[in-house]
C-alpha cells in the first residue's frame, strides 16, 4: 500500500510497509512527522513513539491537530490521508519544480519511439507518422477489421488475426485451428443484472463474452493437461467374470 506516494516522498522502503503491524505504523508516522510534516516541536515528537494504548490517543490527537478530515475511518484511511498530506507539503515546498509534471507531460517523457539504436528495422520506424497510420488502416481493411481511433490498438487486432488465423498451421488445417462456432443470440441472453442504461448493458454483455472466451481457453488447457497426465496413468480394466446381475 501507499507504494507510489511513499516513493515520491523518498521513503527508504516504500514497497514493504506493513500497515497491519503496529510497530511499522508507529515508525511510519514518526518518520512522516520528523522528516516531512514537522507539526510538533522536536521535543514533543516523542509522543508519537509512546507505547500501548497511549499511542493511539496521541495519534488521534495528532490527526486532529493536523485537521485530518478522517475521523472515524480505518487506520489505512487515516494513513492514506496523512501520507497524502505529506506529499502536498512536499509539493508546496517547490511548486515550480513539480508543476510541470502533469500526466500529459509524463506520457511524453516516455515516447512510443524506442530510443535504442537497433539493427531491427521495426525499431527504427516512426509509429506516429501519417504513413504508418495509413498503412495500419489499409491493412485492417484488407483483413476486415473495424479500425479503432487509436491506430496502435488497430495494429494489435491485426496482429492477433494474423497470428491466430493466418499462421501456417491455420492455413494448412483451417478446420482444426479456426473455431467454427455457431452464432448465439447473445443480445437476447439474460445479462443477469441491469445497469439501467442500454449502452452500458451492451458493454457489459461484450465484457461477459470476452470473459467466457478467456474461461474457455483456460478450461481447454486444463483438459489438455489432464489428457497429458492420463497418457501416463490411465489403465482402465474390466473383468466380466466379476459381474453379477441382481434380483
Amino acid at each position, binding site marked *: 500500500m501507499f507504494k507510489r506516494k511513499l516513493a515520491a516522498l523518498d521513503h527508504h522502503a516504500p514497497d514493504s510497509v506493513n500497515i497491519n503491524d503496529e510497530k511499522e505504523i508507529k515508525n511510519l508516522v514518526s518518520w512522516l512527522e520528523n522528516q516531512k510534516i514537522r507539526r510538533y516541536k522536536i521535543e514533543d515528537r516523542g509522543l508519537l513513539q509512546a507505547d500501548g494504548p497511549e499511542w493511539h490517543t496521541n495519534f488521534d490527537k495528532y490527526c486532529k491537530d493536523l485537521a485530518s478530515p478522517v475521523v472515524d475511518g480505518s487506520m489505512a484511511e487515516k494513513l492514506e490521508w496523512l501520507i497524502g498530506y505529506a506529499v502536498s507539503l512536499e509539493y508546496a515546498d517547490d511548486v515550480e519544480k513539480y508543476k510541470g509534471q502533469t500526466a500529459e507531460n509524463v506520457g511524453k517523457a516516455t515516447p512510443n519511439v524506442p530510443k535504442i539504436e537497433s539493427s531491427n528495422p521495426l525499431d527504427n520506424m516512426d509509429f506516429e507518422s501519417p504513413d504508418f497510420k495509413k498503412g495500419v488502416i489499409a491493412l485492417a481493411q484488407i483483413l476486415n477489421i473495424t479500425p479503432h481511433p487509436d491506430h496502435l490498438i488497430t495494429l494489435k487486432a491485426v496482429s492477433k488475426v494474423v497470428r491466430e488465423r493466418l499462421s501456417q498451421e491455420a492455413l494448412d488445417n483451417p478446420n482444426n485451428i479456426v473455431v467454427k462456432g*455457431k452464432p*448465439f*443470440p*447473445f443480445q437476447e*441472453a*439474460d*445479462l*443477469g443484472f441491469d445497469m439501467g442504461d442500454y449502452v452500458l448493458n451492451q458493454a457489459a454483455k461484450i465484457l*461477459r463474452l470476452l470473459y*467466457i472466451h478467456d*474461461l*474457455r481457453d483456460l*478450461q481447454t488447457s*486444463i*483438459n*489438455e493437461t*489432464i*489428457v497429458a*497426465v*492420463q497418457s501416463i*496413468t*490411465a*489403465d*482402465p*480394466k*474390466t*473383468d*466380466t467374470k*466379476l*459381474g*453379477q*446381475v*441382481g*434380483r
Partner: protein
Amino acid sequence: MVVREYNDELKYLERIDANSWRIKKGFQPNMNVEGVFYVNSALEKLMFDELRNSCRPGMVGGFLPGVKQIANVAALPGIVHRSIGLPDVHSGYGFAIGNMAAFDMNDPLSIVSPGGVGFDINCGVRLLRTNLFEKDVQPVKEQLAQSMFDHIPVGVGSKGIIPMTATNLEEALEMGMDWSLREGYIWAEDKEHCEEYGRMLNADPSKVSMRAKKRGLPQLGTLGAGNHYAEIQVVDEIYDKWAASKMGIEDKGQVCVMIHSGSRGFGHQVATDALVQMEKAMKRDNIETNDRQLACARINSQEGQDYLKAMAAAANFAWVNRSSMTFLSRQAFAKQFHMTPDDLDMHVIYDVSHNIAKVEEHMVDGKQKTLLVHRKGSTRAFPPHHPLIPVDYQLTGQPVLIGGTMGTCSYVLTGTEQGMQQTFGSTCHGAGRALSRAKSRRNLDYTEVLSKLQQQGIAIRVASLKLVMEEAPESYKNVTDVVDTCHAAGISKKCIKLRPIAVIKG
C-alpha cells in the same frame, strides 16, 4: 402433531399465484419461516387429496403428507428464506422428497440433517449425447439394450465388472471423478460437464464406517434397483434451439443415453450411521424437531461435520459410479456400431445431483449469505453466468436433467435468474411418486405394464419383475405436469424433451 379438521388445515394454505401456494406459520408448531410449494392444477389435486386423507379420523401414524413435512422442515433451527416444495414433492423420510431447505452457515444453531439429503446420497442423472439418429438405432435397439444390460449389472445385490480393491475404493472416495480420470475410465470433458466437477473436496473417507465401505466395494459400476435406470432415448422435442445446440443437440431424433443412479448401499449406510450419531447429538444439544425422522445436528458440531465429510465421500462414490457406467455404456455402443466412442461423439452433456447438501452463496433479503443448501429430490438449477456452472453453459444456464419413469419421457431444462431468487436455484428432479410401492404392487399387473411398453416400441431389460409394477408410469405423477409447472413458475426453463426407446432397470 397438531390434529385439525381438513377445512381448518386449509386456512393455513394460501394461493400465491397460478403455480404456487404459501404454507403459513402455525400450520405446524414452531415454524421459523413460511413454506411454499409449486403445483399446477393437476398436481394440486394430488397434494390436497394427500392432506385430506391424512385428516380422516383414524389416520394416525404412517406417512405424513408432503405439505406437513415441508412445514416441519420450516421449523428446523437456522432455516432461512422458505422451506420449498417442488412440483414432484411426495412423502419421504423426515424431509419430503422434492424439498429444498437452506440453513445459514453463520448461525451457530443451524443444523444439517441426513433426512434432508436422503438415503441415496448424490443420486443423480447423467446424460450422454451421440451423433446417431433414431433410424441408426431402431433396427438394433434390442441388441443394444442387451449389450447395455450385459455391461451394466443391475438389480439388488448386483456386482460391478470393474475390478476394485479396498485401496482403490479409499482413493475413489477421496478423489471422486478425478479417480475415474486418473484410471482412464472417462474423458477430461466429462469432469468439465459435471456438477462440482465430480468431486467434493471436503470428502474424508476416514469418517465412513467399515460397514459402508464393505457394502460399497463390489457395487461400484452397478446401476442398483428402485427407480434407477439406464435408458437409450431420442430427442422428441426441442423448445430452446440455442441452448440445445450448446449441449450438442441439433435435431429431433438424435440419440442420447441417460443414466440415473446414486451411491448404492454405500450412501445408504453412511446415512444410517449418521442418523444414529445425530440422535445422540440432538439430546446433548437440546435440539427439538416436530418429527423424530428429522434427526439433525448443528453444522458446527462434531456429528454435523463428520456427516458432511462422509456425505461428500458418498457423493464422490456416486460420481465414480456414474462415471464407470458412462465408460461401460460407451463400450457397449462402440461394440455395437464398430466405432470408437469418440467417433460417436459420446460426450457427457451434464451430470446433476438431486440428493445432496452443499455450501453455496445466495442473496437473502438483499444480503449475500453462505448457506448449507439441502436438496432432496431437487435439482440445482443455476442461472446463466453463475460462476459454478461450466463455461459452455455460461450463456444458457445450467442444464437440469429430469428423468422420467419407465416408458415416459424425460426433460432437459435450464436454470433461470428467477429460480435463483425464489428457490435458491433449485427445481424438480423427476416425476415423483403418486402411489406407494406396496399399492403399486397390489394394483398393477406386470404383464400388462410390459405389453404396454412393447406397444410403445420400447425395448426393456429388467432384473426383477416385481419392480416393473412398482416403477410403472401409473405409480408416478405425470412428469410433464411437473416440468410444465417449473417452467410456468419460471424456476427453470424447458429446453429438450426426450423419449425412451430402450430401458435397462434393476
